[in-house]
């Protein structure tokens, strides 16, 4: 995937995530939904790394939730893994748009206390984002379907041929 794609991913969630990264001084942060789709990110140079991290984090989150429920435990609020040099923090929260997960990596420039503090702040900001009921761009299903066949032809012809 192209480098330029990274910049395009950022939209609504970019603001709250950027303040989180600034204030807590973490190195990497990515906001994903339950399926591991990326809503915003800070600090990744390569989209390959980003989607890999996102899919793994969604997997960890899903399995921790399932494990908690099988053991009859309350759902965890966050996961924290402290390595020797770097630490990983996974925090989940509910929003009007579904469950979201923050994955962040930090080192001695930050601390778990700071991360938790500014995570709470970010959660509040994200929850205040207005939900729009209608897409700002109207899309014609007919146009989309009409283009579908030729676009897929092109994609698969490239693959088979090259």
């Amino acid at each position: 995937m192209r480098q330029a794609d990274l910049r395009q991913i950022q939209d609504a969630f970019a603001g709250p995530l950027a303040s989180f990264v600034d204030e807590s001084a973490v190195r990497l942060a990515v906001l994903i939904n339950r399926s591991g789709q990326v809503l915003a990110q800070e600090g990744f140079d390569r989209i390959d790394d980003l989607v890999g991290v996102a899919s793994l984090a969604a997997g960890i989150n899903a399995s921790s939730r399932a494990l908690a429920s099988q053991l009859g435990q309350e759902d965890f609020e966050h996961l924290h893994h402290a390595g020797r040099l770097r630490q990983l923090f996974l925090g989940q929260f509910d929003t009007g748009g579904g469950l979201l997960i923050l994955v962040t990596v930090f080192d001695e420039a930050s601390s778990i206390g700071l991360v938790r503090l500014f995570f709470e702040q970010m959660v509040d900001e994200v929850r205040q984002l207005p939900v729009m009921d209608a897409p700002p761009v109207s899309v014609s299903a007919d146009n989309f379907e009409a283009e579908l066949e030729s676009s897929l032809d092109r994609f698969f012809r490239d693959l088979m041929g090259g």
Partner: protein
Amino acid sequence: MSLVNYATKEITCKIVYYGPGRSGKTTNLQYIYSRVPWDRKGEMVSLATEADRTLFFDFLPLDLGRISGFTTRFQLYTVPGQVYYNATRKLVLQGADGVVFVADSQRSQIEEDIESFRNLQVNLLEQGIDIREIPVVIQYNKRDLPNVLAIDLLDDELNFREVPSFAASALLGEGVFDTLRSISEGVLRKLAGKLDNTRSRSWRAKGVGNR
């Protein structure tokens, strides 16, 4: 569920390769990975046991390019086929937009195929999805082996809904892209219907302005 971002014009869809243990799900993704040019794919993530059996999932992100102005991305996942791993299989199935059922064509494996297909129906139902509502494609894999059942027979056992089905030898790459193309089309056609009418929720940040 597919994620449509109207602001950046991106579509992301999740396709899950399902089927009994050792039917060739991981082999499908490995072949796709080996043939797709670097600028159209991300890294493949595989969580496997030492014996190369899928433990949690394989994951491969693909970039199909633009359709009607939308950058279209697919996330391919495989489930662990072994009966034992049903709990993780359910997790991977969550939010799937389409399913490729990879059956093992060998005569000796038909019971496993049928059992796995039933398991798919049950696990979808647990998520409130009737298997008739979601795009499904069936792949009859390992056609290169000697003791395989005829396609008609396999269709009788597994394909009572008459969804698209393909003969394949994933190890050799045969039928792999036909299968992928078919499920891609099914998923995107279904999405097209939702694109312009249903109210879709998306978010906008304070201060980001009207884009």
